[in-house]
C-alpha cells in the first residue's frame, strides 16, 4: 500500500490529513486513496476519528494536509461543485418538517437545479426508480417523519443514488438497521459502486460487514490510519493481526462452501475460555 502505481487518478487521495475541534486534534496523520469501483470501509473503535474524517471530506471541518477529489484540491471546490461530486449520508438525517418521501428524495437533484427551477417529470421518474431499487416505492407519498430510522436511511440512500456523485460518504449507515436491512443495504452499495468509476467510503461498527462486502478496509486508531486491508487478497493471519490491534484479540475464520467465502470475526479465545469468560463470571463458571 502506498507505493502501488495507479494507472488512473484515484477518486479521492488524502495525504497527511490533520483535523480536530478547536484545539483538540482528533486526526493526526491520515493518508489513503479511494479508487473508482471500490467500496471502502472505515473501521475503528469509538472516538478514533471516523466521523471526524468524514466531516473533513465533506468540508465541514477545517483540515491540514492535501485532499484531492478526482485530481482537484478539495478546498477549491464551490458548495455546488462539492455537492455534485460528493453525496453524504449522515448517521441520522436532520429533516425536521413533514414532507412526502418522494420530495425528500428529490432534494438530491438540488445541486443540478437552478435556484428557481423545479424537478422535471423525468427526474421524478428517476426518484421513484431509486425508491423502487431500495424497496421503498410504496412509501413515496408517505410522510418522511413517520418512517422508522431504518426506512429513513434507505430513503436517503435512494437520494444519494439519484445524485450520481463520484464519491459517496456514509457515516455508520447500519446503526439503525436490523439484520436483513443491514445486508440489503451493503448489497445495494456494492451494486452502486462495483464496476463503476464511483467510490464509497463507509464507516462501520460491524467489522463483519466490512470484511464481507468491502474491497478495501481502512483502519483508524487514535487519529492515525494504521493500515488498509484487502479482504479478498490479504491472508487471514495478517488481517487478524491488524484487526486485533484495534479491537483487542480477535479470531478470524473463513467459512463457506461451493466457492463462496465468508469471513467471521469473533473475540479470540484465551486459556480462561475466551473473551467473554474474562468479563462474564457466569460463562466461566459453566466451563
Amino acid at each position, binding site marked *: 500500500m502506498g507505493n502501488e502505481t495507479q494507472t488512473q487518478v484515484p477518486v479521492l487521495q488524502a495525504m497527511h490529513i490533520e483535523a480536530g475541534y478547536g484545539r483538540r486534534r482528533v486526526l493526526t496523520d491520515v493518508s489513503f486513496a479511494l479508487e473508482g469501483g471500490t467500496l471502502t470501509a472505515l473501521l475503528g473503535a469509538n472516538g478514533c476519528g471516523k466521523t471526524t474524517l468524514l466531516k473533513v471530506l465533506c468540508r465541514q471541518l477545517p483540515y491540514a494536509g492535501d485532499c484531492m477529489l478526482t485530481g482537484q484540491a478539495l478546498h477549491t471546490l464551490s458548495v455546488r461543485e462539492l455537492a455534485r461530486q460528493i453525496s453524504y449520508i449522515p448517521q441520522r438525517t436532520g429533516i*425536521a418538517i413533514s414532507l412526502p418521501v418522494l*420530495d425528500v428524495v428529490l432534494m438530491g437533484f438540488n445541486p443540478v437545479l437552478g435556484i*428557481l427551477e423545479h424537478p422535471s417529470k423525468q427526474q421524478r421518474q428517476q426518484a421513484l426508480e431509486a425508491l423502487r431499487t431500495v424497496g421503498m416505492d410504496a412509501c413515496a407519498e408517505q410522510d418522511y417523519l413517520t418512517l422508522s430510522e431504518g426506512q429513513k436511511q434507505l430513503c436517503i440512500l435512494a437520494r444519494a443514488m439519484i445524485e450520481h456523485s463520484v464519491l459517496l460518504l456514509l457515516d455508520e449507515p447500519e446503526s439503525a438497521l436490523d439484520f436483513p436491512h443491514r445486508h440489503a443495504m451493503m448489497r445495494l452499495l456494492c451494486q452502486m459502486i462495483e464496476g463503476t468509476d464511483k467510490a464509497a467510503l463507509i464507516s462501520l461498527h460491524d467489522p463483519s460487514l466490512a470484511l464481507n462486502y468491502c474491497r478495501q478496509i481502512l483502519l483508524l486508531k487514535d487519529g492515525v490510519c494504521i493500515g488498509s486491508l484487502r479482504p479478498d487478497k490479504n491472508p487471514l493471519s495478517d488481517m487478524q493481526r491488524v484487526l486485533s490491534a484495534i479491537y483487542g484479540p480477535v479470531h478470524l475464520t473463513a467459512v463457506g462452501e461451493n466457492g463462496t467465502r465468508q469471513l467471521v470475526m469473533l473475540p479470540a479465545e484465551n486459556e480462561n475460555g475466551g473473551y467473554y469468560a474474562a468479563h462474564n463470571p457466569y460463562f466461566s463458571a459453566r466451563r
Partner: protein
Amino acid sequence: MKKQTSLILALTLFVGAMIFSLFIGKYPLTLQQLLAGDSMQQTVFLTLRLPRTLIAGLGGFALGTAGFVFQTVFRNPLAAPDMIGVSSGASAGAAFAILFLPASAMSVTLSAFAGGLLAVLLALMLASLASGKDHGSIVLAGIAVHSIAQTVLMLLKLTADPEKQLASIEYWIMGSLNAITLRQIPFYCIVCILGLLGIFLLHRQILLLSVEESEARMLGVAVGKLRLLILILATLVVASVISLTGIISFIGLLAPHIARLITRDNRLSTLLLSGLFGGLLLTVSDILARSTAASELPVSVFTSLLGAPFLLYLIIKKSDNPSKLR
C-alpha cells in the same frame, strides 16, 4: 382531491370574508346604492372600507406566509415572524415618529417600517459575528435585539407626554386597521407583494433550509446566503404589514399550523393555505373588532381570542410529538 378541495374552500372563505368586510361597519353600505352612484356611499367605500379590507386580506395573507417561512427556516414550530425583532423594532420606530417627527400617519408608518428592518438587519449582523453561524445564533441575536428595542421603546415612553403621545404609542402597539388610508397603501402593498412573490418562487429552497445544516450544504445549498435572503424577504413582508397596522399577534404562528393540519405536509399548497388562512383570520378578526362593541377594539384581541384556544387544541392533539412540524 382533498387538497384541492381544501384550497378552493379556503379561497372561497377568504374572498367571502373580504366581500363581507366591505359592507360591515358603522356606516351601512348597500350594493344598490353604491352602484347607483350615491357619493357618500362611494366615499365611505373608497376611503374607509376598501383600504381596510385590502390590508386585512393582504396583511393576514402575508403574516401567515411569513409564519410558515420562519417556522421552516428555524426548524421550530413555535417560531413566529416577531422572533428576530421585526415587531419590537417597528414599535420603537413608531414611538420615535410619534415623539419626534411631524405628526402624520405617513411618518409613523415609514418610521415603523424602517425600525422593523433595522432591528432585523442588526440581529442578522450580530449573528454573523458568531463563530457557529447556525440558526441558533440568529435566534439568540434576535432575542438580544428584541430586548434592546424594548428598552428603547421604554425610554421613548418615559419621555412621552402621557396625555396624547403615550396613548397613541400604546394604541399603535395594540394594533388596529382603523387608521389606514388609501394614500398610504401603494408603497407597502408593492413591497409586500414583491416579498411574497419571492417567497413563493423560493419555496423549494425554503424547504431545503429545514434540513440540518451540514446535510443541506452537501445538497448544494449555500445555507448562510440563502437563509439571509429568505429572512430579509420575510421581514420585508411582515414589516410592510405591521407598519400599517401595528402589532398583530398569533396569525403568523397559527395560520401555518392550520394549513399543515389539513395538508399534513409542507408543499407549495401548504404555503398557499397558510396565506389564505392568515388572510381569513385577520379579516374576520377585523370585522369583529369594529362591530362587537360601541367603540372599536384592537384587532389583536380577536386574533388572540381565536388563536389561543386553537393553539391549545394543537398542543393537546399533537402531544405525542409536539416538537415536529407536522
